[in-house]
Every structure is written in C-alpha cells, then in structure tokens.
C-alpha cells in the first residue's frame, strides 16, 4: 500500500482525527493521506464489444417486470393481481421472512401478467406502462433532517431498500441488524462493464444525498472505493461523509468482495452491506424528488450487438427493442449483467434489478476438428498455451463454448493467480464439496461470494462450475449457522 495526497472537505477533517488518518497542510489546503490498495493478481478479459460513451434515452419500453429470482433467497408474497393499476412505488410483493421489505413498481401502469412457474412459484410481475409515469409521494428533504428510523422506513416503503445487500450470502440487507460498514464499489472491472464515472456524470447532488442517507443508517463507515490511476469522476472524489479508498489493478479489483477483503475483512458473525454506485443515485433521488425514480443507465455491450451505447431506462425494462443484433453468423445469448456473473434472459425478457449492463455474446454450440491441437491465434486463454498470448491487446469474440469437458482437479495454482485474497480458493472449494462446515469457515467462506470465483471459473482447466459450488456452500453454511 502506498499513500497519495487527496484534498478533503472540512467535514472529513474531523473524521481524520477520529480515524487516525495521517494528514498535513500544504498552503491553504488540508491534505490527507489516502489508502491505495494495489491488486496484483487477476485478469482483464479482453472481450470485444465495449459500449461507446453515448447515452440514448429509451425510457418507454413495451413492458416492465420485477422478478423475485433477482433477489437471492427471497420468498415473495404477492400484493397485486392482474389488472391492478399501480404507480411507481406501489408495492407488488413483499418478503415473507421480512414483511417490511417491499418490492415496488418501477413505473406506473397496469399489472398485465403475473407469471408463475412450477408449483406456482412466482416468476415475474409484468407491468404495462402508462405514459404519464405517476408516482407514490414520499417525504422530500435532506436526509440530515431525518432520523435513522425515518430514513430506513422511507427506503423500505418506497421499495428501494432491496438495493442494499449483505455479505456474506449476498441477500437483501436486514434492516433490523445493522452492519459493521457499507461498501460501494464505484467501478466495475468485469468484462465490458459500464463506466460508473460516465453513469454518475452530472449527478453529484443525488450521489451526495444518497451517501448522506447511507451514512446515517450505519454507525460504521461508508467506504467508497474508486479506481486509482485514471482520473475518477469528481462526483466520487468530492463526496463527503464516506471514506474514499483507491484501488488499482486488474479484475477483480472492482469486485466489492475483494475490496472488503482488503479493507475490513468479514469475520465470522459479522456482516457488511453493499450497493452499486448507480443505486446510490436512486436513494439520493428518493430524498431529493420524494419518489421512487428507478431510471438508470445501462451499457449495451458484447460482440453480437451493433448499437453499443448506454441506454437510459427504468429498472426492469423489457430489452426486446434495445439491441440491434449482429446477425451475421450465430445464435446469440442475451445476458443481463456481465459475461462472468450475469444471468441468461430471453430476447423478450427484462433487465435484472441489480444489473447495469446487457451483454450479447454468440452461442458456442459448434464442434471444431482437433480444436485442442490448433495453434489458436484467435483463442483467448489466461494460460499462455495458445499463440494468442503473443498478441497482447487483442480483443476476442468469445462465445459460450466451454472449450473442454468437466474433469477432476489436476492443475494447481491457477485459481490463486486470479484470486487476490488471502484465501486458498481451491482448498475452500474442496471443503465445500465435502461439506466440512468448520473447514469452510476456517478457510474464509464468509469472505467470499460466488462472483469472486467467476474469474477462477473462467480460467479453470477442469471446467468446474465454481460459482454454483460456492453458492451451494454459502447456502449450506447459512442453513447450519443462520
């Protein structure tokens, strides 16, 4: 870790004394030493298809949906029926375990369909939008004038609360059990990830108000993690009331789990909350505008799409009319989120609640003659076993082929090279596979999340589905230990 000077406001001046942060004066400005955390291990996957930094308004989609499956571990209880008229902010369903946690309509309109799956499992509540987009009124005002309970209640009632999630387990935060800290990653290093500097540009006030609200609901710190090396948006660097940490290095430096691990790792029995930078804006707007304004920018990315731009949408928008497909060759997979951790959606599906990105990649259901023997100038690998490793900087049209079959563990050290935490990933995976609870705890299962293993899964020679294994491990721990 090294230190860089960073200019701070008077408000953080006081915080410096409390935190024992080193500081000094230069001329008229107070300069405080900030932490830079340098991540060495990892990999930026050179997938082709980054979004241009142009924002296009696409606010009126053909439908909007809220899908309970976006919220891990949720048992929803429905509050509306088909034909009901709703406003933006009208509750659609709630959490059976925590009835205070409401899930509300992102836009106003009519509930046109309630999709159910096997055993009548609730899949989606679909809304046909009206053009006015009327909303439920909430109290306007600076969060500083609210009490902690008032802020929490306003977030719960407006249906914005679920933007805050908890580690371990990545479930919706429990409003009754405060965390030791809140973490916001203001950058994403996943393949073709949206640029949060671009997303928050011009929204400094909303961001600051959002941070103010968050700072009031926790006694611990609010950590805002921004990239070092580039010139991060002033929206982030001028934020007050949060501790700013700088991170440098390849993916997964932008993963909040990695950041937590380097700043304040989760010990057994502890929890932290986290949310995306874009959702901080949503919280800010709740207090500034007094309504649930679910608008957000999403990046349309990937090798199979032509109009790669940022689209301004409301949360849960149908994606049908967004992408212009590059239909030149193959079938396309639509991924809500990024290519490492996102989930597959149908071409007429809806963008996920937590996703700020839509990625379209070609399906890879093709055989190749002696593919494993080819020189492979067009095959990307972390392992340097293909000639493509002689072509640095090249971008690849990666598809969904597994490039091999499931095998037992053979290669070692591969996960470690892309896993920048003080944890033995392969041994943790083995502990999960044999369901050894104590060993899982000892090897750090509380500090990890499936997404932290996405890069290991990408690089795995034995083609193991590690995110699934980690998810099962966390479920097991949660069931046994609560």
């Amino acid at each position, binding site marked *: 870790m090294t230190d860089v000077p960073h200019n701070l406001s008077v408000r953080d001046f006081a915080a410096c004394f409390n935190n024992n942060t080193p500081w000094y004066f230069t001329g008229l400005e107070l300069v405080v030493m900030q932490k830079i955390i340098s991540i060495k291990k990892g990999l930026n996957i050179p997938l082709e298809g980054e979004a241009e930094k142009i924002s296009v308004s696409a606010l009126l989609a053909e439908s909007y949906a809220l899908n309970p499956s976006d919220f891990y571990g949720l048992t929803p209880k429905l509050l509306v029926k088909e034909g009901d008229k709703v406003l933006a902010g009208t509750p659609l369903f709630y959490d059976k375990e925590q009835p205070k946690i409401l899930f509300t309509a992102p836009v106003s309109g009519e509930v046109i369909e309630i999709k159910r799956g096997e055993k009548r499992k609730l899949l989606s509540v679909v809304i046909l939008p009206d053009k006015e987009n009327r909303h439920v009124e909430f109290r306007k005002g600076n969060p500083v004038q609210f009490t902690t309970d008032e802020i929490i209640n306003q977030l719960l009632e407006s249906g914005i609360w679920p933007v805050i999630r908890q580690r371990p387990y990545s479930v919706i935060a429990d409003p009754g059990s405060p965390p030791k800290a809140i973490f916001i990653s203001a950058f994403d290093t996943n393949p073709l990830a949206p640029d949060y500097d671009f997303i928050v540009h011009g929204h400094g006030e909303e961001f600051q108000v959002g941070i103010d609200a968050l700072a009031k609901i926790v006694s611990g710190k609010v950590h805002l993690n921004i990239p070092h090396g580039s010139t991060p948006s002033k929206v982030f660097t001028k934020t007050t009331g949060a501790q700013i940490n700088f991170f440098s290095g390849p993916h997964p430096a932008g993963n909040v789990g990695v950041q937590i691990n380097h700043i304040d790792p989760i*010990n057994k029995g502890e929890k932290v909350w986290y949310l995306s930078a874009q959702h901080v804006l949503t919280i800010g707007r709740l207090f500034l505008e007094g309504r649930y304004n679910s608008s957000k920018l999403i990046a349309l990315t990937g090798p199979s799409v032509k109009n790669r731009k940022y689209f301004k949408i409301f949360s849960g928008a149908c994606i049908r009319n967004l992408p212009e497909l590059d239909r030149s060759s193959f079938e396309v997979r639509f991924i809500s989120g990024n290519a490492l*951790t996102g989930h*597959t959606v149908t071409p007429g599906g809806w963008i996920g609640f937590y996703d700020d990105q839509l990625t379209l990649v070609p399906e890879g259901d093709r055989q190749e*003659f002696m593919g494993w023997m080819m020189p492979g100038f067009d095959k990307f690998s972390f*392992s*340097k076993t*293909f000639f493509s490793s002689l072509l640095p900087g090249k971008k690849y049209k990666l598809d969904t082929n597994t*490039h091999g079959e499931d095998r037992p563990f053979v290669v070692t050290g591969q996960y470690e090279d892309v896993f920048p935490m003080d944890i033995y990933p392969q041994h943790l995976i083995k502990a999960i596979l044999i369901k050894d609870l104590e060993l899982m705890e000892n090897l750090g299962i509380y500090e990890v999340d499936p997404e932290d293993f996405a890069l290991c899964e990408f690089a795995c020679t034995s*083609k193991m589905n590690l995110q699934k294994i980690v998810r099962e491990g966390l479920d097991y721990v949660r069931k046994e230990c609560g």
Partner: protein
Amino acid sequence: MKFIRDILDKIKPDFEKGGKFEKFWPAYNAFDVFLFTPAETTQTGSHIRDAVDLKRTMSVVILALMPCLFFGMWNTGYQHFRVTGVETGLWENFFFGLIKIFPIIVVSYVSGLTVEFIFAIKRGHPVNEGFLVTGMLIPLVMPVTIPLWMVAVATVFAVILGKEAFGGTGMNVLNPALLARAFIFFAYPAQISGEVWNDLTLGEGQKIINGYSGATSMAVLDYDYHNLPPLNDLITGTIQGSIGETSKIAIAIGALILLVTGIGSWRIMLSMFIGGLAMGFFFNNIAPAGNPAHPMNLPAYYHWLIGGFAFGAVFMATDPVTAAQTNTGKYIYGFLIGVFAVILRVVNPAYPEGVMLAILFFNVFAPLIDHYVIQSNISRRVKRWNSTDR
C-alpha cells in the same frame, strides 16, 4: 473432416443411453472429443470460458518432452555405435534409437490406455487425459534395454495401483510414471541397474571395444567422481542413462516450454535446483579430509547435471497432482526433493541415483506440507476473528 464427423454421428446412437453399446459410451466419447472439441455450451456460472482444457495442457507437456525424446533416440544410436566402433551419421544414430524406443512407447501407451479405458467404461466416467503424459514419461525414464513385457507390467501396475485405486486422474498420491519405474527398480533390479544403459545388440561383424562398461555414467560417483564424463558431455547429453534424462539442453528447452506456457511450476523447479545445490555445498563442507575421491567432494552444481536430477525437476516433481498444491508448499516441496535427492546420491553407497525415490517420498509428504501451509492461513484468520470484539 466432414466425413469423419458423419461416421461418428452415424454410430453415436449405438453408444448413447438405450443403444446396444451403451456401456462403451466413455470409449466412444473419448474418440469423439479427441477428434472434435465438443459443442457443449455453458449452462451455469460464467458464460464465457478460457480456451484451455486438460487436453491442451497435456499436449503442451508432451510437446515439451519431444526434445528429450528425439535426443534420446539419437543418443541411443550414438552410444551404440560409439562402443561398436562404427562410424555413423546423425540419421543412422537417430533411426537406430527410433527402432529401439518406438516399441517401448507403443507398449507403454497401449497397456496404460487399455487400463484407463476399462476403468472408464466400468465406472462410466469420461477417459481422462492424464495418461497421455504418463505414457510418454514412462519410456523416457527407462533404460533402452528394458524388456517390453516389463514395461507393460510396470505400466499396468502403476495405472491400477498408483492411480485408479485412488479414483483416477487427479486423485493419485504418487507420480504414476515414477511409480512404474520404481516398480521395476524393486521387482526386477537387474533390468534397471548395472550395465543396462546401452543397447549392445551387435550387428554382423561388430564387436564391443575394449574396456567398455554399459553402466550408467553416474556409476562412478560412489568410487571416484573424477571419472564422471566431462562437463560438455553432461550438458549435451552424449552419455549413458535413461532414454530422456541425459541431455540438459533438451531438458532446458522442455523447461522453457513449460515455463513460458505457465504449465510447469517455476516454484518447484527453482526450489528443487536450489535444494540440490544447497545440499551439495553442505556436503562439500563436511567432506572427509584426505579422501578427495569421496562423492561429498563433488562440486555442487554437478548434481544438476548428472543422473535424472534435471529431468526429475522439470517433468516429474512438477506434476501438479502429486506435488504440493499451495504456492508456499511448492517451494518447500521442491527444496526438500532437491536436498534428499543429493543425500541419497551421496550417502547411499549401493546405488548412485536418488532423484526418483526423493520425488516419490515427497509425493507422499506433499499433502502434509500443504496442511501446515493452510493451517497457518487458518490460524491467521482465527486470530483476526478473536481480535475483533463482536
């Protein structure tokens, strides 16, 4: 290619569930995925995946072994004609070796893969690629005079008891190729020690030059190390020894391939070389005075160049399944192999080489080394838990 695909597609239903050869699915599948990388797509987790798989990894190792194999073929001929006093060129030497060594390779692969296929069919799991490398390593650590039936018996033994008994590829404790060699070493010592390191089958009118010994170039170590072959020969590999182990240049090329591609662990290679050197220096310092021929006096760097040290460090100790798996563990594991290989060489008067046994020994201890490395990670974490007040 289309026509091969058509044949495979035509017979495929017979091997699928309900087909008449349903049981042989693993065998069919092994051929199919060997010829055509499967059209399988990601169903869960990361949507895109790295291009590398076990086939690619293993073929890189085989590629890295090729310099050793080709040099070994040439050297077999060279050593043969050297002692029979026949003037020969590059290709005559090479073809002599090719004819001698090719059958050993075939026997190794056929016997080993037969066992692999039987177990795959019996257990209904896909045929794993692990044996592709083992099957090449076994011939390279044999003397050229090894009887073929012995290769077959040793290979079958190593694959069944060394690997399949533990659950197959990825589950074995001992390096299967070294286990095959150790099997012959203990079961048929006469065929793998003594004067076996040169093929002396004589052609018409040939005879062996006077005073020649077919012993390994290392045999003199225990009597007077000054009689070791000159440094140049040790490096280029024009000496007698196991087929693949003699040329340090060929091994260096292989090591380079493994290191550049990231397949071989540089940690193990480096620490094993350092371990050997350190022990060599240690012996230099405690060598008995007044006995300049004693092997303890051997200059430490010679340990890198004689016997199977380099080959073992590059191709055997680095086997990821049987080595230590943690990065810290790899340093310890490699270092200890280096140290013990030199101890066995110098202290054991009965047999001049110790690399094989040192590697097998630490194959067994690798999990223990990892255990302690991981325990220190665990105690660090538990300490952190206890230091925070909850």
